[in-house]
């Protein structure tokens, strides 16, 4: 395993860091408080070729690996969690099209996603299907050259703003998870509308909307993967998505650590900076160690994917650990800031609210433990 970045990766990460430092970070508070789609940031990501990092060059992407995609995502999330989340949710559409798309689908949909002309979103979750992905109730019934979709998706990140949606439907309810089929659905398709945009604990500028399908006719060419093989598409997408969520979690955890450390030097109590106190030092040591562990788990999962090796268990481990580290690290950061940390004067209370998302989204911590346990119980059963 080698996480040494080559010259190209190093140059790209350096340019991304500069962009984050100069553009994203100074506006992060404003971006969150606007409670509106961060159009300007997303436009800039597109201009900088950052919306198509893992997409092959022949389809207009940068053709970089998922390790680089993750390292870039960490920088974005650390500087502006909202922008990092858009970047992560966008990948949930481009990954299944990259992996399962026909040549025609790739030409048609990947190119505008790579250029950021189109934003992507992935629709799996429903009122009755969250952790239990097999319980999808949105139906797709074949009618000639089309499939007719009926049902509702909820909490869909980038919903409403995205043009390209990868939607998981049920084509054969009697077969449960084995009867799911995935489609690419374009915004503007008749019968495809947007419902409620959830008001959340944090991430006010990230849309999490209802997608409502009412007799929505989707051409059969838009089927992604084979009929009734949608569970595989969803699981593969979620596995990469978990690397993305782990990435975002590492980003917000790092942001909390980077906010807290300078404060420990500034803040004077009992006639000295609080960084002199062991109680604070131990918190900082734990935060730094855990952030590094979380990043290494995340990079390992990305690296395995890049090597074409199985990475499902490792992605679940990274997502589980990184999201819980994000929660612990941001909570400690608030504690270090004390009363000020509880105010909106400082970003750490926002980080703490944002961190909670990562323990829930794309498979709760409990679901990750189920996935990991399934692997471990099998692997070590001799």
């Amino acid at each position, binding site marked *: 395993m080698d996480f040494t970045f080559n*010259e*190209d990766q190093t*140059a*790209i990460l350096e*340019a*991304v860091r*500069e*962009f984050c430092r*100069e*553009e994203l970070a100074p506006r992060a508070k404003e971006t969150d408080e606007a409670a509106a789609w961060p159009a300007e940031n997303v436009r*800039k990501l597109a*201009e*900088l*070729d*950052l919306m198509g*990092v893992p997409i092959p060059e022949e389809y207009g992407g*940068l053709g970089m690996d998922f390790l680089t995609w993750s390292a870039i995502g960490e920088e974005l999330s650390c500087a502006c969690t909202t922008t990092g989340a858009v970047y992560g949710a966008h990948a949930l559409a481009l990954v299944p099209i990259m992996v399962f798309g026909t040549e025609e689908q790739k030409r048609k949909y990947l190119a505008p996603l790579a250029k950021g002309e189109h934003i992507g979103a992935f629709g799996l979750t429903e009122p009755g299907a969250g952790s239990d992905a097999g319980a999808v109730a949105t139906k797709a019934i074949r009618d000639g050259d089309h499939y007719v979709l009926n049902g509702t998706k909820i909490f869909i990140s980038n919903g409403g703003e995205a043009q390209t949606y990868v939607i998981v439907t049920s084509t054969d309810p009697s077969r449960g998870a084995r009867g799911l089929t995935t489609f690419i659905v374009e915004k503007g398709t008749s019968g495809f509308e947007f419902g409620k945009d959830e008001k959340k604990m944090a991430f006010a500028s990230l849309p999490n909307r209802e997608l409502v399908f009412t007799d929505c006719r989707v051409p059969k060419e838009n089927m992604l993967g084979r009929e009734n093989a949608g569970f595989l598409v969803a699981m593969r997408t979620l596995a990469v998505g978990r690397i993305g969520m782990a990435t975002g979690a590492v980003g917000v955890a790092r942001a909390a650590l980077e906010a807290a450390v300078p404060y420990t030097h500034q803040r004077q109590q009992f006639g000295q900076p609080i960084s002199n106190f062991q109680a604070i030092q131990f918190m900082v040591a734990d935060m730094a160690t855990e952030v590094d562990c979380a990043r290494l788990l995340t990079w390992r999962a990305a690296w395995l994917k890049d090597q074409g090796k199985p990475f499902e268990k490792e992605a679940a481990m990274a997502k589980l650990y990184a999201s819980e580290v994000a929660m612990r690290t941001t909570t400690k950061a608030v504690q270090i800031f004390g009363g000020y940390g509880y105010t909106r004067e400082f970003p750490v209370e926002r980080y703490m609210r944002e961190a909670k998302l990562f323990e829930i989204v794309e498979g709760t911590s409990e679901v990750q433990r189920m996935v990991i346990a399934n692997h471990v119980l099998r692997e070590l059963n001799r």
Partner: protein
Amino acid sequence: MNIVVCIKQVPETTEVRVDPNTNALIREGVKGIINPVDENALEAALQLATASLPQARLRDAGEGKVTVISMGPPQAEEALRQALAMGADEAILLVDNAFRGSDTLATSYTLAAAVRRIGDADLILCGKQAIDGDTGQVGPGLAERLGVPQVTFAIGLEVADGKLRAKRVLDDFFEVLEVKLPAVVTVVKQANDPRHPSMRNVLKAKKAEIKKWSAADLEADPKQTGFDGSPTQVVKVWPPEKRGGGKKIEGSADEVAGELAKLIKDMNIAAG
């Protein structure tokens, strides 16, 4: 339209350290960056190059060419690569031991020789001044050397019918000047927001060729370059003395006012 942008690599720091023996800036361990306002000059050039096309479409290679030049040590190549990453088409480093010790007179001589060698420049842009030397003389000097009109402190630029219309920002007013091309313009920070390079350009710039021109390539008169061409000699450079911490007066408003009045009185500076 062909535009030449002159850039300088400067140390990325506000804490400039000076070698007490040579009076030269200590550059070791300090990252080199493009002089910030030179990025504004480059941004202005990139915008003009695009605007000069029929519809403001993306530029194809070769049209509305933007060439960046820099005189400096070999490591100034990094600044030129950053400029290429931002979208410049070509980069030339003027590098020669004979250029060492150049003051603004010698620098403008050398840059002028390079602009002449490039040959077909319609417009030459510089940043208003560099954050290390802070003279603001190279742009005007370059215009004199080339015998072309100059506009300093430009905040806005427009080109039409072979003429340049530039808005200058002065202490408390703006001034709009129209000059014939070619001309030299120095650009201020408020002129624009320099773009961040796209990742594709970052990768391209890493592999791009940077031309290197020596004094011989420029057919430069050795008496006019480097130390020999520089009548200005830096006698001494030192960082400003740190200001004292001041005095904090505490107490009620009345006490503070009384104490302050007494202090001012003791200084003998208050009138009456």
